[in-house]
């Protein structure tokens, strides 16, 4: 018993150290300072504070979850130990920063940052601030952990709403529809301060959100009423109609700022749907996907731009040619590359993406592709009397594109071809034995993905009325990959969720841009470790991932225990 108890404290101690190390990481990477000016609750809590405390909260929660059968006093002890240790580590950093100037190495370790960490309290006394805040956060976690689960999830979601609304204060207020006077009055006078929420407003949001979630969560548990198929169908039609109205009116409801974000998100959704076929359906990891976007965009650029003056087609004449070229590029790359498996394929496609970028940038092809300057003055598409050059008009064009692509992807998924893709993804050898033509199946996946990216490229060119080689980097490929992984590989709604979270949100928060790829990396690793099936998983894929765990893990455990 005593050894067990001491091991618990040892665990708490080491978790405290980990939390402290993560806090240091977050501080020195610069997140705390970058978000230190973003008020969540005006004058009280900034987003930086919250980010700083996330490691403490997370590790306290994991430690508590492991010690479920221990008395409350032990839990209290564990939480305070974790809070104390992580807080002391932060204080040590501050003290170190007073003795040595850390800035030549760690650019973020400025006096402003230290002041922020001590919440404005000057030194000797200020040294106590980080431990106290960390202990407070740990105890708060304990408190949330102890309340019953239904209320707990409601409280957590209520708190999330406060954070989201507080952070996005400016973004909420520029939504067109909220500018109507009574709503704007309520929002500006009661809920929001000049930055972030008013303390009272925060409380209001928290109570309303918590109450709503609690109420709705409770309702679901009641006995399910069995509805007749007719009613179900009618409800579904109503739901779709409401959704359609919302989606169609979005650019005018939200205003120009949001239209831009929506359009970018839309292009990523289109690429995501394409890559989802390649990676999600067929299991071929393509890291050079942006190449096909580039091919689509450049074909349109070359064929229509008056700046280059090579051809003078209209957008609609160039569109089918661009799609054909992208599709052919998919086949030409696919033919040699698809004979290899797995990770080699990933690297080769990455190489291909780089080759395309280098060619586009080179002086050699400058007279055709514009070199480093790219291609300017691409005429916007004209549809009858309407010139599609405003953000709102383009939104509808992109929406139609997404509609077509999503429809094709959805129909393909359960088709004969779609099933072949999934068979190939799960086991190539077995699929081949079942009579699936591997090369043809993979090639179709590859070229369909290329086609969709090409379409996104043409629309992207129309949106910007120019094509820049510097926007065709590896990072875009990764961006698309991350969004389908976050959403759930192979899942079509997952692509939408992923794009909204990963492209839409960073578009809203300008502070976020700087750390966007940091978060992407974190998200990729985190998702793969803890939830490989994604946020909106596809049923089959989920089964596959967990099946693998169940079957393969036991013998391994045997093997390692044999060694010990």
């Amino acid at each position, binding site marked *: 018993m005593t050894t067990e108890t001491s091991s618990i404290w040892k665990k708490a101690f080491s978790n405290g150290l980990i939390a402290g190390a993560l806090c240091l990481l977050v501080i020195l990477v610069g997140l705390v300072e970058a978000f230190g000016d973003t008020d969540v609750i005006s004058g009280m809590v900034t987003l930086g504070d919250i980010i700083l405390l996330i490691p403490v909260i997370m590790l306290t929660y994991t430690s508590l979850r492991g010690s479920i059968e221990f008395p409350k006093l032990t839990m209290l002890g564990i939480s305070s130990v974790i809070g104390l240790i992580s807080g002391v580590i932060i204080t040590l950093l501050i003290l170190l920063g007073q003795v040595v100037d850390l800035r030549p190495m760690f650019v973020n370790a400025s006096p402003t940052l230290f002041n922020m960490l001590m919440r404005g309290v000057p030194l000797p006394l200020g040294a106590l601030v980080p431990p106290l805040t960390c202990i407070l956060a740990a105890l708060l976690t304990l408190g949330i952990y102890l309340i019953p689960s239904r209320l707990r999830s409601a409280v957590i979601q209520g708190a999330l709403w406060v954070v989201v609304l507080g952070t996005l204060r400016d973004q909420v207020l520029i939504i067109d529809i909220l500018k109507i006077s009574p709503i704007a009055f309520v929002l500006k006078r009661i809920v929001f301060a000049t930055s972030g929420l008013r303390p009272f407003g925060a409380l209001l949001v928290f109570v309303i959100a918590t109450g709503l979630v609690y109420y709705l969560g409770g309702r679901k548990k009641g006995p399910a009423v069995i509805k007749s198929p007719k009613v179900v169908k009618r409800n579904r039609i109503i739901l779709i109609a409401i959704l359609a109205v919302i989606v169609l009116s979005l650019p005018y409801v939200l205003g120009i700022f949001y239209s831009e974000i929506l359009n970018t998100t839309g292009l990523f959704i289109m690429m995501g749907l394409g890559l989802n076929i390649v990676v999600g359906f067929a299991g071929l990891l393509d890291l050079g996907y942006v190449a096909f976007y580039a091919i689509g965009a450049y074909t349109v650029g070359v064929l229509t731009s008056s700046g280059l003056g090579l051809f003078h087609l209209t957008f609609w004449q160039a569109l089918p040619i661009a799609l054909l070229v992208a599709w052919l590029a998919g086949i030409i790359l696919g033919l040699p590359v698809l004979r*290899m498996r797995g990770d080699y394929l990933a690297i080769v496609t990455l190489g291909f993406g780089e080759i395309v970028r280098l060619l586009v940038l080179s002086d050699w092809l400058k007279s055709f592709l514009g070199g480093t300057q790219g291609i300017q003055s691409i005429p916007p598409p004209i549809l009858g009397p309407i010139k599609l050059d405003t953000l709102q008009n383009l939104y509808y064009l992109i929406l139609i594109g997404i509609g077509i692509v999503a429809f094709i992807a959805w129909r393909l998924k359960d088709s004969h071809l779609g099933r072949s893709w999934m068979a190939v993804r799960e086991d190539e050898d077995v699929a081949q034995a079942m009579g699936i033509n591997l*090369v043809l199946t993979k090639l179709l996946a590859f070229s369909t993905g290329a086609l969709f990216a090409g379409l996104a490229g043409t629309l992207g060119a129309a949106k910007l009325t120019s094509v820049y080689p510097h926007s065709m980097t590896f990072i875009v490929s990764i961006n698309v990959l991350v969004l389908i992984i976050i959403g759930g590989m192979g899942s079509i709604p997952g692509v939408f969720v992923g794009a909204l979270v990963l492209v839409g949100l960073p578009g809203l928060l300008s502070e976020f841009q700087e*750390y966007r790829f940091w978060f992407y*990396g974190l998200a990729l690793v985190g998702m793969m470790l803890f939830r490989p099936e994604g946020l909106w998983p596809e049923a089959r894929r989920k089964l596959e991932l967990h099946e693998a765990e169940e079957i393969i*893990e036991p013998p391994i455990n045997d*093997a390692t225990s044999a060694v010990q």
Partner: protein
Amino acid sequence: MLKRWRQTVTWTDIVVWAIGVAIGIAIIVGTIRTWQAGQYTAEQWINLTISGLKLGSIYALIALGYTLVYGILRMINFAHSEVFMSGPFTAVFLAKYLDSIGFYNTYPLISLILITLLSAGVSITIALLLERVAYRRLRFAPRLVPLITAIGASFFLQYTFRGFYGNDIETYPNFDFLKGTWTIGSIAIPKTDLLVIVSGFMMMLILYGVVQRTKTGKAMRAVSEDKEVAALMGIDVDRIIVFTFGLGGASAGVAGILYALIYQNVHFYMGFIPGLKAFTAAVLGGIGNVVGAWLGGTLLGLIESLGPNLFLQGLGIPAANQLKDGIAFTILVFILIFRPSGLLGERISKTKA
């Protein structure tokens, strides 16, 4: 005979071979035309060769990390390029500090050893953290999962270091004792280049010795053959994998310092392209093979350095040096298609990946 040939050859093969032959012809034509034009002297060719060799040594050292990890875990440690970046990007601050107190050029050898140790230390730490935090749990996950994790880890590390040390390019101070050249006959080799080439070769020999001659090396080879059987033989598989990551990290850290000696500049994105090329080198030499990595790296360095002048210029391509990265990637694609086993390796890409 012809009939059998017709049955085994598919359209894919024909297209692949056609592309291969076209590139081959382009290279030969380009080379002949460059030779005929004769615009470069022998001395220039020798200089290009030396610069190719030094580049190659760096690729080789990074490639060792890819090769060792691939040999054991059958996974591409995509984040290895960040292991390479982390060392020199951290050690630059020590170098600058030593320079500012005047120690750097008074005791250059001690300084060089200190910054190399720091660089290797940081790289080893990052490599071990990667293994512990990200890869260990995924050792038996479906094959795409660790690869995607590695890509994520790579981005995470890049932007972590960017956050730590800033967006700027940091510059290593010069060593006085490495200035100037060293002459054999009529050939002048810059001292830095000589140091890089020799230490690259030495590192390869040391690692080869570790893998082939020590007990741990034997255990590494056993684990690479079959983890479960190795475990039954009393080998601590986890420890061996950690050791392998450490070894890869160390060679990446040393490679980083050599890179810094040549180019002086380090920044958070410096790992990406060399990492990709080092992977190419590892594949070219035969992945999983230490000597192969060195051979592949050196060859790749040479091709990259000589190639643009040798055959691209002959084809009349302006500013051919812009395309030198393209050459490396083209080699990668074609090696993987025509000889996935590389120059010295076993055939892995189809059977085990």
